């Protein structure tokens, strides 16, 4: 914990490896959320309107 993190430089971009891993994990989680099936038992049918006004 007391040693500085390793940094990656790509052109003008400089980012620490822990931050790079975190962002990569977020991208993976985002893609997984898009493609993973969602268990829905309380959803209305297509065509229902949820707009209040």
């Amino acid at each position: 914990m007391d040693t500085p993190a390793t940094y990656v430089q790509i052109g003008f971009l400089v980012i620490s490896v822990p931050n790079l891993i975190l962002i990569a994990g977020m991208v993976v989680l985002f893609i997984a959320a898009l493609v993973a099936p969602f268990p829905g038992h309380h959803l209305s049918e297509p065509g229902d309107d949820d707009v209040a006004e």
Partner: protein
Amino acid sequence: MSGQADTTWTGRARGALERRLPLDHLLPSRQPFFVGSWVYIFGVVAITALVWVIGSGVTLAFFGPGWWHVSDVGRFVNSVHFWAVQLFFVFVVLHLWGQYFMASWRDGRATTWIVGVVIFVAGLVTAFTGYVSQQNLDAQWIAINAKDGINATGAGSFFNVLDFGQMYGIHVMLLPILVTTLVALHVVQVRIRGVVRPIEPRARPTDGARPTDPAS
């Protein structure tokens, strides 16, 4: 008051609330079919993380730095506070990505989007004032290095990062009230308008013509 409009300010406010936010919109038992995706979970997880941030923060404020830096339980609660903040920002950003790519400011939801942006910025300032309120070398290092940047903006005269009392007061009182109020407003805004519909796919041409935009 039967047959007559209630012209008192409380009556008008009640009428406006009943028209814009009926209870079945505020506490719905069903959601539209397109909400069946994990992408819609990110915002709720961010709110859950915020609950943990506030709970652990109240505990830290009650016992003080002599407790959160020294005792085992204090260090544990301090860590819960820190990691809940990390989770809050991770899921706020994931929520932001999801809403950005579905252009969720459509159909009269611009103010909902703007309030979300303000929550994000207010959260950043809250986190910053938290970092400089830790009462350790890390806090001193951050404050010393940040003061020049803050002073360069001209805000240093009334936002002094070297003033622990000011930073701590802002961190534990003003900004938590602001963020919590804005999050509540954000949720109510979503309930008033409902969740935005996904963007319709463009119609596939069968004769080689260019795809047509459903919005046009």
